[in-house]
């Protein structure tokens, strides 16, 4: 039986450095190593670093939009540029930030958390990353590839969900829509590859003693997410292929001028699109489910319920898609069905929220930066979920749909919810990946500036929606009552920008001068903390014994181990 002392004697001189260069290798050799790597840890870092770069780009696009909308009759950008901005912003954030981030987290952490040496298919892992990167570059190449109507490039301008028949040939001349189709098909292939890898790894490469029931919640959630990706991405790919056939071979899937159906596109898109948003948020839940217990010093309250709730969300979430279509003229029976399913999916989601709070309750909460971000997430996700319930009431949605209220809602989910947990995850696992701690003080600045900026920008937009402001408009007339909220919303962007700069500075600085982390800076309980920071290429010299879902807790508390109670 392992004891605590044995863990500490893992030799540190075999750790693989991740960018903290201590050798005198030429840069090209290091670059070459990264280019051909199939190591899940390096690929994980590459995914996340690339996602963060696209995040900054997507953020700049948003900042320009908010500059245009800060005042009525704005003249910062002309309409065609604005329409490309919101299309690229949405497409970037969902497909080039959210998806690769979750792939990065999964690929980095899953093998470590289950005591494996790498993913099941390391080369497939590399393929997934590079095809994602290619897709992302292809999307942005659209800005320079050819003449648009006003000579400003042909970036897509049909909105991130590309409704037909706006995307059909008569209304979408040139190649901009094709860039959207092709680049997203490619990134989708990357996502599916990652999903296959996570499922195979989770099912076949767990270390001895790690039954499915003892896997960390993080692994469980990413396993469920991967299953959803397998089932939810193909509808989008199928619809995109059909759209390509319409555009280039004259098919009539969605081409209303030739007998096609615009509504069919919406169904197919949202059959993908709604599970997609659960695919995006569940990894955030996964981070929260690891961080909140550790920083509250208690196990997850109701672990089994968390698992059950996750699976429920996955299944019910496949049956709610038409709540994005309450205004298209479906029958009242159809609408009622989707009201029921949508409200129902709120129940397991709420249960998870309660479980997190109950984990904190009675604990000894340490508000280090990861926990600050998780706490922000809890408050903000609560609001996000409730505005979702509001829109689930279809008649209410008949007013709110396609207005800034929806924009506020989904930014609350994805920025206030997901992004906060992703930052929490970065602050939590950065020490493991790099061997150095991120600075706490800068972390606090990052957090509070982001909170202020986020609320200034998005709390106000709820009211814009209530006051009748539709989304995707490049400007508005004065006198509608929208000026005040838009100005305040735009001011919030400045805070968010400064917060992001704080974060970037924190990362850059800490990579060189951060405090040395050691194996287990947070006194945590899952297997990734049982090896060095950063881990050696092979991850574990010896894998600790696993008899419960908190193997390191058991080792640190031999008198009060989990396996006596689980």
């Amino acid at each position, binding site marked *: 039986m392992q004891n605590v002392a044995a863990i500490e004697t893992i030799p540190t001189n075999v750790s693989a450095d991740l960018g903290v260069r201590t050798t005198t290798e030429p840069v090209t050799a290091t670059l070459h190593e990264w280019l051909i790597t199939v190591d899940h840890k390096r690929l994980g870092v590459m995914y996340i670093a690339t996602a963060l770069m696209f995040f900054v780009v997507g953020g700049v696009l948003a900042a320009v939009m908010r500059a245009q909308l800060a005042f009525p*009759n704005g003249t910062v950008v002309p*309409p*065609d540029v604005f*329409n490309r901005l919101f299309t690229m912003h949405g497409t970037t954030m969902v497909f080039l930030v959210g998806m690769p981030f979750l792939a990065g987290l999964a690929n980095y952490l899953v093998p470590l958390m289950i005591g494996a040496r790498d993913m099941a298919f390391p080369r497939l892992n590399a393929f997934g990353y590079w095809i994602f990167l290619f897709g992302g570059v292809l999307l942005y190449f659209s800005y320079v590839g050819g003449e648009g109507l006003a000579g400003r490039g042909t970036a897509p301008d049909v909105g991130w969900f590309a409704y037909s*028949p*706006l995307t059909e040939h*008569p209304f979408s001349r040139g190649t901009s829509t094709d860039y959207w189709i092709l680049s997203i098909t490619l990134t989708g292939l990357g996502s599916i590859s990652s999903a296959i890898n996570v499922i195979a790894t989770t099912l076949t490469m767990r270390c001895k003693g790690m039954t499915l029931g003892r896997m960390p919640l993080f692994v469980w959630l990413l396993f469920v997410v991967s299953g959803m990706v397998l089932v939810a991405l193909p509808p989008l790919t199928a619809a995109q292929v059909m759209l390509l056939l319409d555009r280039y071979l004259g098919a009539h899937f969605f081409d*209303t001028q030739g007998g096609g159906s615009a*509504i069919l596109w919406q169904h197919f898109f949202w059959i993908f699109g709604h599970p997609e948003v659960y695919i995006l948020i569940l990894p955030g839940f996964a981070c929260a489910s690891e961080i909140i217990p550790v920083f509250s*010093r*208690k*196990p997850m*309250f*109701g672990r089994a*319920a968390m698992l059950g709730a996750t699976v429920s969300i996955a299944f019910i979430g496949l049956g709610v898609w038409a709540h994005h279509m309450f*205004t298209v*003229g479906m*029958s*009242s029976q159809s*609408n*009622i069905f989707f*009201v029921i399913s949508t*409200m129902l999916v*709120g*129940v397991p989601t709420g249960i998870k929220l*309660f*479980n997190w*709070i109950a984990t*904190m*309750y*009675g604990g*000894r*909460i340490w508000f280090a930066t990861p926990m600050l971000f998780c706490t922000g997430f*809890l*408050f903000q996700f*609560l*609001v996000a979920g409730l505005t979702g*319930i509001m829109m*689930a*009431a*279809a*008649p*209410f949605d*008949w*007013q709110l*749909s*396609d*207005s800034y209220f929806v924009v506020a809602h989904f930014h609350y989910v994805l920025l206030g919810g997901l992004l906060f947990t992703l930052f929490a995850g970065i602050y939590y696992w950065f020490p493991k990946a790099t061997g150095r701690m991120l600075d706490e003080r800068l972390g606090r600045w990052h957090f509070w500036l982001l909170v202020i900026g986020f609320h200034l920008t998005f709390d106000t937009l709820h009211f814009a929606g*209530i*006051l*009748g402001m*539709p989304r*995707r408009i490049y*400007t508005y*007339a*004065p*006198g*509608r*009552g929208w000026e005040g909220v838009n100005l305040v919303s735009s001011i919030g962007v400045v805070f968010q920008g400064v917060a992001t700069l704080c974060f970037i500075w924190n990362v850059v600085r800490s990579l060189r001068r951060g405090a040395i982390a050691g194996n287990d800076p947070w006194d945590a309980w899952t297997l990734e903390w049982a090896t060095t920071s950063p881990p050696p290429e092979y991850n574990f010299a010896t894998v600790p014994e696993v008899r419960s879902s908190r193997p390191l807790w058991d080792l640190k508390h031999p008198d009060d181990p989990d396996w006596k109670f*689980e």
Partner: protein
Amino acid sequence: MTAPPIAVVTNIFRPLSTPAESIAALSWLVVGVCLAIFLVVAGLLAYTVVRFRRPAVDLDREPAQVYGSSQIEIAWTVIPILIVIVLTMATARVITEVQDRPRPEDALTVRVIGHQWWWEIRYPSLGVVTANELHIPVSTSSNQRPTFLQLDSVDVAHSFWVPQLAGKTDLIPNHPNWMWIEPKVEGTYIGNCAEFCGLQHANMLIRVVVESEDAFSQWIAHQKTNPPAGQPGEKLFLGLSCVNCHTVAGTSAKGTFGPDLTHLMSRQTLGSGVMSNTSDNLRHWIRDPQTVKPGNLMPNMQLSDREVDQVRDYLMTLE
């Protein structure tokens, strides 16, 4: 070209028509329930955050490791389910109330057809065609006058949203939709197209003028008349290619690609709400519509200054 300031604030919580009122009533219920949930849960979270902070002097003792509690977990599963049941029942009732209201035989029916970036409006039973401004009679308790709109599109998807009158319904090509409004207060109501429809989606505003039964009848009667013939500028106008896209009833202008201009000057705005209907604005539009609403489907007709003035003068006679 700047749009005229509109003194109307379109708040969904200031409904002035039956469907909007039903929606608002349900919405208040839902908001109330959500607010209550928020106060309870956020309150609990706030309490937890304050009460269970790690003390300054950390005694390095782990707190009691609690794994769960069946009773609590069942409670917070059952209560949300009950809330969901209540909300879905209330919601289902309003859905059927609004969506499945039968259309009376004698109800006023208007066809609203979406174009990139203007609204074609037809009163089939009354033989009236106009654009961008919908006139309907007010509904009073003694004279209930719901108006039923049949929504369609010739190009891409649009959405009819006048918040104070009703929830929005989409205009989807190949998929006609029905909606109804029953306004209780006379006045001009503003709305926007609420489904992204391309370049000038932002400038596709709809105006709904709700007027008394008499005023409405007068308006209809006026709209049915043909403008007087032989007005100055008429010959020039009919000789230009304007007639390829526009209709002026009683003349050889029978184009249907652009808005009907027969009673252009009876409307409050030009360009579907982009600017108020004044002589100068009209001149600007005719001179170069692309400077007013860039990308709209009326090109710069390359008219000389004199031609612009004459066309403007002619159109000013179309009251």
